[in-house]
């Protein structure tokens, strides 16, 4: 099972090899361009072009592959449990614990020792950026 899961998230070593070979060749082209600069400007220009395109492409592919792995993670949201004392109004907020449910009676109140009640369980979603449309 975990093997299957890791297979899904793993980047193929062949792809990685191609990316790194392209990156090395492109960097070599850039070094060659620097050395050729001064005595053969045309060749240096072409080598610069090849080098830059190669570096840009390999970096882009590498970043894309990394992003794919990051995207594959299932995010577990944080869930808040609110516990209230109906007698004195004392309120306590904590992380959700397995077994919690709305209207469950829990530990006694710290202030009046009366039984407390879970009154809310929810997750808060961060306010996303305002939508660009106005309708």
């Amino acid at each position, binding site marked *: 099972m975990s093997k299957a899961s890791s297979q899904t998230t793993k980047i193929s070593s062949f792809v990685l090899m191609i990316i790194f070979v392209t990156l090395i060749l492109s960097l070599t082209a850039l070094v060659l361009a620097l050395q*050729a600069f001064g005595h053969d400007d045309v*060749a240096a220009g072409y080598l610069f072009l090849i080098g830059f395109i190669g570096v840009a492409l390999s970096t882009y592919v590498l970043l894309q592959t990394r992003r794919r792995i990051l995207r594959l993670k299932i995010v577990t949201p944080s869930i808040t449990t609110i516990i209230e004392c109906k007698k004195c109004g004392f309120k306590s907020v904590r992380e959700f614990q397995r077994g919690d449910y*709305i209207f*469950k009676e829990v530990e006694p109140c710290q202030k009046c020792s009366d039984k407390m009640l879970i009154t*809310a*369980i929810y997750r808060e979603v961060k306010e996303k950026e305002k939508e660009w449309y106005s309708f």
Partner: protein
Amino acid sequence: MVFEAVTLLDMILTQIDIQQILNMLFYIVFIVFIFYGQRIQMYVMLREVEGSLFKLKYIKDEGRKIAIETIREIGKPQLDPTTRVDRFLEYFTISPQSLDPAGVVWKLEHILDVRDARLKDEVKLMAPSADETQTNNLENTLEAAMALNYIYKVIRHYYLLGKKTLSLYIIMQLQMILPLVMREAEAYASALKAFAYGQPIGDGAGALVAAKLMRGYETRKIPKDCIAASVPIEGRTAFVVKAEGPGGNVGKIGDAIKTIIEENEGKIATIIMIDAAMKLEGEDVGEVAEGVGAAIGGPGVDQFKIEESILKHRIPINAVIIKEDIGDAVSPMRKEIFDAADKAIERVKQVILEKTKEGDKVIIAGVGNTIGIGQ
């Protein structure tokens, strides 16, 4: 050596005119696109589907892993539950024949009852130490894992079929619906943990409203898997109904409403149903709206039963809905939806005041999965 390489490049470049090469390249690309354009487009689409399929496989495997871990943790089985879980994930239900549609609802109800009983028995065998609430939660967890497994298999089927036949139309259709399918799969993925931990989900908005209304009043069990309480609201008697919590359960609200109508010999002034409903893009999560009709989803059996009962006694039916999208419906309840429960209660009271008179009897039904919501 470096100098030799530069000289060689310089020699090649001086002998070939760059303009000529560019022209030649342009013609080659043009001709290739004339003959192979569609095929290239198809490979691009296949690659896109392949990426999503990888993600679906990951989500499906995670779902299976979470289900097995939860069964081991809660159910404390003596044998390894992996084989049973794998068998469970492949379960299917054949819908009844509808060539002659008369009576198809009762046939469908029977099939669904058999399915439900079968799944519950399987879960009990897998997790012998689980109590009723945990059994319901485990059943929901496994059903979410089952849905993910099914989505993955269907997408894989069409992907491989498209690849085999190289049919642009199969691949194109698949690529076009993929964003919606992925959204649904991601929703089920977040539902898995909610079900496993017994957290309230967005679909439980209706059940939460009912739970808030019946809190502090005596409750009784009514068929099937439902809870009812008689609550005085604005001088009327309200029979508040919801599925029995806090385990993952939707109950048979149709049967519950029918029972209460029969107990009161049809003398019900109005029925108000509260449910979570699919919002349209652009609408706010937790928006409350009001209308008429039986607000209940699922295969349609409960809606049919409610409509039959109200037609027999000519009872008006109102609906209050809390809007949310598919992702919110099956993932842990958002604060906006939780807060909307109070707004929905206000709307219910307003409907009662406007549509009934003092001394009347009303039914308030909170529809939805009551996981993580007591009463």
